[in-house]
């Protein structure tokens, strides 16, 4: 298992390199000019110098190589420095100072390092996305179990219909719909997610809770629909197996049969689906963040795109790619760990 994990980890390096090359190539082919916003009174030779200052004068392979160095060598050094100097988790380690003033990936919009902005925006996205995923799974698994157990019952029929609807309604419709109902007509929930809100006491926690309900539920609806379908299918496959009859025949209680024997076997494919769905939910967060004005990384990507901020776009898209590759790997490893029948070597 460990060798398999290592092999997959090593194989993911060329994958990531290829993806970064694709993204970089797309950006190179793009006709957008970062100097488009500069006033026309600026003479062309000054513009040319500004371009060179942004690193645009060099041939593409030099630019790509520099980006790679900055992303994979300089940024990790800063991260390690931060971890050992000022973080709570690893602060006990001796202070390191690997980073000594090399050029980092600089955003063209703000002229500050891209990773600093990403780190600022990440918690909002992680909170909304992570929580919605957990909520979605917690709702989906009991629904899937029960509708498989009572196959063709009213609950099953209704559950299948509702998951189908949840599957089909896009988040950019459920979002505004919920805002119209709960913020405009009923006035129960705020329509905008205020990221500057700080939780200090019970009252402010309640505000935070209320403003998280809608974005989390919109994203959770998609997750719930998908995962409860898989859960139901997996349970149905297992409920008719011989070992279930054996378990019942030796006198186990129905609860133990379903919740221990069948559930554990059905969770194997579902866990991998959960891991594989994680990157997709980050992609869906781009739309949800736009609807509820959450200033997470999805919204950052959109604004960077419109502002022609190529280093920011490149880095963010690549972070999405890392997430996908990482969770694919996790899914594969989990599958092997959970199912002893699967041997990779």
């Amino acid at each position: 298992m460990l060798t398999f994990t290592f092999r997959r980890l090593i194989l993911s390096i060329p994958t990531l390199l290829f993806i970064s090359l694709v993204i970089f190539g797309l950006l190179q082919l793009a006709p957008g000019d970062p100097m488009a916003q500069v006033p026309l009174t600026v003479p062309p030779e000054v513009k040319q110098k500004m371009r060179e200052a942004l690193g645009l004068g060099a041939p593409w392979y030099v630019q790509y190589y520099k980006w790679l160095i900055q992303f994979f060598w300089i940024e990790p050094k800063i991260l390690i420095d931060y971890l050992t100097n000022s973080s709570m988790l690893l602060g006990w380690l001796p202070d390191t100072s690997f980073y000594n003033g090399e050029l980092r990936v600089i955003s063209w919009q703000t002229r500050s390092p891209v990773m600093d902005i990403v780190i600022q925006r990440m918690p909002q996205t992680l909170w909304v996305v992570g929580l919605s995923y957990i909520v979605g799974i917690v709702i989906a698994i009991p629904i899937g179990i029960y509708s498989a157990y009572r196959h063709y019952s009213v609950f099953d029929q209704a559950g299948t219909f509702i998951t189908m609807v949840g599957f089909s309604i896009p988040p950019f419709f459920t979002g505004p719909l919920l805002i119209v109902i709960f913020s405009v007509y009923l006035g129960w929930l705020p329509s905008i997610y205020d990221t500057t809100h700080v939780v200090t006491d019970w009252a402010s926690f309640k505000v935070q809770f209320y403003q998280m309900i809608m974005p989390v539920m919109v994203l959770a609806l998609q997750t719930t629909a998908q995962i409860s379908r898989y859960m139901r299918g997996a349970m149905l496959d297992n409920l008719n197996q011989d070992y279930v009859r054996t378990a019942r025949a030796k006198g186990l209680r129905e609860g133990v049969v379903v919740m221990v024997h069948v559930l554990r076997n059905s969770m194997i494919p579902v866990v991998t689906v959960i891991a594989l769905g994680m990157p997709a939910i980050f992609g869906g967060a781009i739309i949800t963040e736009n609807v509820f004005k959450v200033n997470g990384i999805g919204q950052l990507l959109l604004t960077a795109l419109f502002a022609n901020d190529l280093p920011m776009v490149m880095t963010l898209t690549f972070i999405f790619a890392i997430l996908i590759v990482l969770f694919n790997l996790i899914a594969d490893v989990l599958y092997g760990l959970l199912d002893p029948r699967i041997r990779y070597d």
Partner: protein
Amino acid sequence: MTEQAVPASPIEADIEIFGALTDKEPQKPPRSQWKDVWDQFRKHKGAVFGGGFLMFITLGVILGPWLWDVDPKALDIRNKDWRPVYTLLWNADAKAGWIHPFGTDQLGRDILAQMIAGGRVSMAVGWLAMGLALLIGTAIGVLSGYFKRLDFLMMRFTDLVLSLPILPLTLLAVTLFRQPLNSRFGPEGGMFILIVGIIGLTSWMQTARIVRGDILALKEREFILAARSIGTTSGKIIRRHLLPNVISPIMVSATLGLATAIITESALSFLGVGFPSDFPTWGKLLADAVQRMQDFPERVLLPGIAISLTVLSVNYLGDGLRDALDPRIRGR
């Protein structure tokens, strides 16, 4: 066959003696595979409704402009902000009437006409992008399943494309390549080509994987061996024997692809990187209405419901097709 037709032949007489060999009931007409599929499909009520609704929407947006011949782009600023006709039910003073059944927008454009025009674009994007994805997916699937030499390279390539972040890349490509395509094909045509191309190029991978798996299994069957032994060329084997046998997984992934394509197009329009603003699509109508949804919720609801119902019906259709085309489920 001819011997049986002759009444006095000795074989016929033998059959008469052994009564067990005679048929007791009249022969049924032979059933074709597609009749079986249709019978199973009809049992799935959701699928029948889904298929019916999809046909209704498709015909509606194709024939709609003749039935409701109001120009969707005609401005009529005096009659702006009409409410849909059903508001009269609870509010008799509302600005509404049968001249504009779904009301008008802030510039006085008829919303029903806009919905029909928008549906045309959304459905056209959906069908074309789905077709493109199927074409690429089937080609890659068949080639890598049939030719062993290509298999490794093509499947690694599919895996690589599968791990690309699709929505960010789509956003990226649409924003970056809008200008050159627009200048060549006009703002609407360029955007149409761009969106269809991008959705098609980023959603063929599942089809390719499924088709490859099926081809790998089919390739070892006897009928392919028989075809090869009489000297059938590879191209003929693929066209005559393999492709007809993988038509069912292709059809199922076609429905999925149609649903994804419609949603992706609407999402792009919603994020503001889709078609130009005076060119209605369902996603565009929805996005434009979000700013004033407190006053005019129907402008969000109508296109949203149109998208959702279409996607829902396509998903149900796919569900029913999967059941109907699976010989293990059929006849149960």
